[in-house]
């Protein structure tokens, strides 16, 4: 279980996150959504340790991890799929999957992970993670890596970005498989209705604040109203916040 207590984060005199309190239970599939600039990616980075909050605490399975670095959090079982996957000259798909698992892997295992994201292992396993791969291919490899890592708590930052519809359906299956097999928590930062519709819970962020958090059945219908987005958010916030 992950607990964020009163997390605030400022950058360049701008408040990015303001007094965030959030609880993500073990085994839950949680989607975090909200308009651009609402603080979603920053929140994800704060959970992974890639950004340090100015105030507040983060507890993971009861342990205070606020001062832990990225490596320590990764070892405790937190995983992170980048919105824009990183390229490496020289390191291959196999190298990265092995680093993710912490072991040498058999071809058949790599094949499982890669075919889950719609890639043929034979063709990709020895490819370098460099410019020769398309954005969509890099994204799929990134997701395969997180599937291989088998973290207790995995964050996917906009996994659908740059992925075509065909791969997107695969992606949903991967999340469902990870959810079933690992029984950990999955947090997805997303705007995609289809991803929101498979979540157990939805968190809505706006202007760095959690403006709504609840079961999918409760939140999703509010998000899917035909209202223009501004009035929709106004409604969700009880008309309190100005639309930007």
């Amino acid at each position, binding site marked *: 279980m992950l607990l964020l207590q009163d997390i605030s984060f400022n950058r360049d005199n701008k408040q990015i996150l303001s007094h965030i309190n959030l609880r993500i239970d073990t085994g839950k599939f949680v989607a975090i959504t909200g308009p651009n600039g609402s603080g979603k990616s920053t929140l994800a980075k704060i959970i*992974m340790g*890639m950004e340090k909050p100015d105030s507040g605490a983060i507890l993971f399975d009861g342990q205070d991890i606020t001062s832990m*670095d*990225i*490596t320590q959090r*990764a*070892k405790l079982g937190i*995983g*992170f799929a*980048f919105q824009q*996957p*990183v390229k*490496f*000259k*020289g*390191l*291959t798909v196999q*190298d*990265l999957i092995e*680093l*993710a698992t*912490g072991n040498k892997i058999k071809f058949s295992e790599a094949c499982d992970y890669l075919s889950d994201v719609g890639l043929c292992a034979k063709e990709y396993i020895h490819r370098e993670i460099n410019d020769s791969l398309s954005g969509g291919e890099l994204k799929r490899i990134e997701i395969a*890596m997180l599937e291989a*890592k088998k973290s207790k708590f995995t964050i996917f930052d906009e996994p659908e970005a740059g992925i075509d519809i065909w791969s997107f359906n695969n992606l949903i299956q991967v999340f469902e498989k990870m959810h079933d097999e690992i029984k950990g928590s999955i947090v997805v930062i997303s705007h995609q209705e289809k991803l929101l519709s498979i979540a157990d819970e939805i968190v809505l962020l706006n202007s760095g604040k959690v403006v709504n958090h609840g079961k999918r059945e409760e939140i999703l219908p509010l998000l899917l109203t035909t209202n223009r987005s501004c009035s929709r958010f106004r409604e969700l916030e009880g008309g309190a916040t100005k639309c930007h």
Partner: protein
Amino acid sequence: MSLDSLEKHMLKQIADIEEVPMGAYNIRKDGKGIARNTTSNIDIVPKKDKPGIDIIIKENTKNESVHIPVILTAEGLKDVVYNDFYIGKNADVVIVAGCGIHNNYCETSEHDGIHTFHLEENCKVRYVEKHYGEGDGTGKRILNPETIIFQKKGSSFEMETVQIKGVDSTVRNTVAHLEEDTNLVITERLMTHGTQHAKTSFEVNLNGENSSTHVTSRSVAKENSTQEFISKVIGNTKSFGHVECDAIIMDKAKVISTPEIVANHLDANLIHEAAIGKIAGDQIIKLMTLGLTEQEAEEQIINGFLK
């Protein structure tokens, strides 16, 4: 013949062998040949006018290899050697060279190997060269290899050079002359540390129609070391040349890359790509999210880059 443990260790480092190799070989230690073997297709003849050997490979020789490693362990030795390779028509061979210096002394040890390759029509050569230095002495370990390649019609030459550890100073010169329908692939891997200096210079002359070359250099410069990379590809006819030079710079190291491509013909298609930069921060962060420490991440990135 039997090799002692130091000889075996050095051979393992530079030629990935621990015993005398299969096929033709010439092992040179401290300025003298200590073991030699020839086959019915590959002859090795010592030169009479200067130090070195002629390696003569008969035409149509297939799937054979020649190993010519050099080991330096004596104090203050400057070894200069001239090796000429004559590769017959349609031959397909692997040549493994390499030099290892084990210097436990105060005096400098130096090996300058001048290798000239004469490739006849339609032959195919893979040439692997590894340079390595070690030892507790304060004496410098210097390696200055020079490679000259002449390629006749239809031949191909693949050269792989590696210098990862322990060489204080190196000046590497490679010059190639390509006739029609030839291909030259050069892959260089280099790492310097401490106060080491490495200078690499490639010159490829694309003289024959449809000749082509790919030169790839990947290097890592650490600590206070310096590197210089000079490449020149000259397209004198319809030809293709691609040079890719990538360097990772760390600590207080310095890297200079000087590209030169010369098109003397309308159909000469020449590309040069060069990049120098430190390890990208997001690469380290990505590997840390997989559970590696910052230092382990850095090692993985460098090992992968130089693989």
